């Protein structure tokens, strides 16, 4: 397990949890990234505009880590073609909205309140993703 980084995993995961907790306590909303993207693309939703600010914060936070704590920036390795990236993005986007959530909404915000839909969703997408990796890494 030479790639295992439990300490930075714990720090980063706690920050993600604190962000979601802060957002929930302040605004009453869950931090589902694909859901926020959907409402960013839907100008008629009430209180429009904050979604774009939230999404802008994601690379801003990443950039700030790079600026002030560069030792905490992991190497970014993409070992696939741009076509696979495009296909994966399209599939993930459609699936996330069909199933009302992705890793953040169902995983981080749904699991801890024991929402049955989130438990089912997370169990399924984790399993399917692992099966997909098994096929792409070991079978083809």
């Amino acid at each position: 397990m030479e790639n295992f980084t439990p300490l930075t995993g714990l720090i980063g995961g706690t920050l993600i949890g604190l962000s979601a907790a802060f957002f929930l306590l302040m605004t009453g909303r869950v931090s589902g990234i694909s859901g926020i993207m959907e409402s960013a693309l839907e100008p008629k939703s009430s209180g429009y505009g904050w979604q774009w600010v939230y999404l802008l914060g994601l690379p801003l936070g990443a950039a700030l880590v790079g600026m002030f704590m560069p030792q905490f920036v992991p190497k970014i390795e993409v070992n696939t073609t741009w076509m696979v990236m495009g296909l994966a993005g399209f599939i993930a986007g459609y699936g996330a909205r069909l199933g009302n959530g992705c890793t953040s909404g169902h995983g981080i915000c749904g699991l801890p309140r024991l929402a049955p839909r989130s438990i089912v969703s997370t169990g399924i997408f984790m399993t399917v993703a692992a099966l997909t990796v098994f096929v792409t890494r070991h079978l083809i």
Partner: protein
Amino acid sequence: MMWLISLIAGTVFGAGLTISGMVNPQKILNFLDVAAIPSGGWDPTLAVVMGSAVTVMALTYLYLGRLTSPVIGTKFFLPTRRDIDTPLVAGAVIFGLGWGLAGVCPGPAIAALALTKVHLMDFAIFIGALVFGILLRMGTRSSIPATISSAGSKA
């Protein structure tokens, strides 16, 4: 105020995704590659990240029971549906396929834009296609369920 809170939340989320290593697609794939467990090549970091974020949120939900409203706004927009329907299951299968293909999910893809020049185009293509997939779903949604009234709050 909503904008400032959103900016802080998004920024801390992006920092967490970066520090945890979740912005690296190979790290996600190394977690999903459970066949590597026997050889010792498996990377359980994602479970630690998920576990710590979920723990913080679980404690938050316990505290939430004492509150009647968030700091700004009048109510909590928590999803109320409990039914397991076909779109939920099919959506999770489709999302899992996309996530497993590249090791990239929506949050890390957007955060990673600030971290790489070499792979900037890869993430930009992923996000462009992601938006296309989201728009396609929005366009094909025939009936709008009641929960959609609180658009950004969906899980």
